[in-house]
């Protein structure tokens, strides 16, 4: 048998396997995570130049104590009733200026959605999970109302429209179209959720 010329070729056939193994390892271990959460704007630290006087009936007060109990409009309330209570307050429509509201028009509750403010106060020892759940319910109340109006006007959910509008991958033509719609619904039920210390006098 004659000897082969030169060094024998290295078999590179299993190279692909090794690379695949590495690839799968990275695919599994790394997570392309997008975090999600509740967006909120904090009030600026400078006090407004003039005190805005808000009627007591336009404020929906939610107090959380350190045991996680809720005091809503001076009454003890169960967390599962909070969303419906907030919804009823927001679309109460006492002055009749909101033609899309389905509220009871109770004179002792909010005038119209643009005036209605939800004020959330908490004890320093409230648990964060309770706090978030309450926030979630209040945002949920706004979203329920907005979804209802979006369904009526555009046959789709507001939350879906907003997510699509905020998604950077949506083509700009669709986004421009959505911008007006989203803005319109937001103006119907502006989110006025105050976490600042609101004085009672």
């Amino acid at each position, binding site marked *: 048998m004659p000897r082969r010329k030169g060094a024998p070729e290295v078999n590179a056939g299993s190279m692909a396997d090794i690379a695949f193994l590495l690839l799968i390892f990275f695919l599994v271990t790394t997570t392309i995570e997008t975090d*999600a959460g509740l967006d909120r*704007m904090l009030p600026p630290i400078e006090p407004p130049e003039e005190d805005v006087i808000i009627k007591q009936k336009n404020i929906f007060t939610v107090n959380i104590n350190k045991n996680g109990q809720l005091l809503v409009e001076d009454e003890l309330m169960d967390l599962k009733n909070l969303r419906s209570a907030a919804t009823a307050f927001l679309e109460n429509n006492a002055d009749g200026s909101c033609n899309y509201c389905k509220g009871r028009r109770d004179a002792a509750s909010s005038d119209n959605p643009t005036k209605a403010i939800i004020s959330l106060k908490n004890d320093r020892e409230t648990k964060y999970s309770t706090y978030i759940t309450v926030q979630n319910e209040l945002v949920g109340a706004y979203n329920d109302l907005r979804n209802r109006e979006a369904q009526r006007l555009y046959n789709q959910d507001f939350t879906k429209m907003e997510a699509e509008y905020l998604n950077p991958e949506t083509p700009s033509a669709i986004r421009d179209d959505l911008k007006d719609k989203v803005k319109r619904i937001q103006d119907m039920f502006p989110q006025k959720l105050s976490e600042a210390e609101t004085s009672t006098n």
Partner: protein
Amino acid sequence: MKSIRNSKKAQPAISTAALPDIVFILLFFFMTVTTIKSETLLVDNNLPQANQVKKLEKKDRVIEIYVGRPNQDLAKVLGSEPRIQLNNKIAHINEVGPYVLQELAQKPDAIRNLVTVSLKIDKEVNVGVVSDIKEELRKVNLLKVNYTVFQGNSQVGKL
């Protein structure tokens, strides 16, 4: 050997020599695109759950603040009171403002006013710490916050 040679006359095998290259390209793509979490968590970070959430789309526009009890290794030194973690180290509440401003200064000009502060706060933490952080953020005029949560059913029934 003989039968193959007879049946398929001079049909060359498909060369798979380029396959590793293709896979390596994929591998490098994933290695560069995915970000391995740079921060090691020094505190427990079990986020609460909520379902009315909005996504935080762009990572470069987010500043993260973690709050929670120190994890098991550090609990001996730091005790079990909730602590704030800023960028790999435990910090005092007073350091929140300067840290956030410093992070903000590193962002390009164009996105500076779009920056959101993501508050990653453990379930068990008391709201007092959170209000302190919010107060600090208000002082440096960074008003966009996001209470980062796990997406899921809200805990209405469980409280």
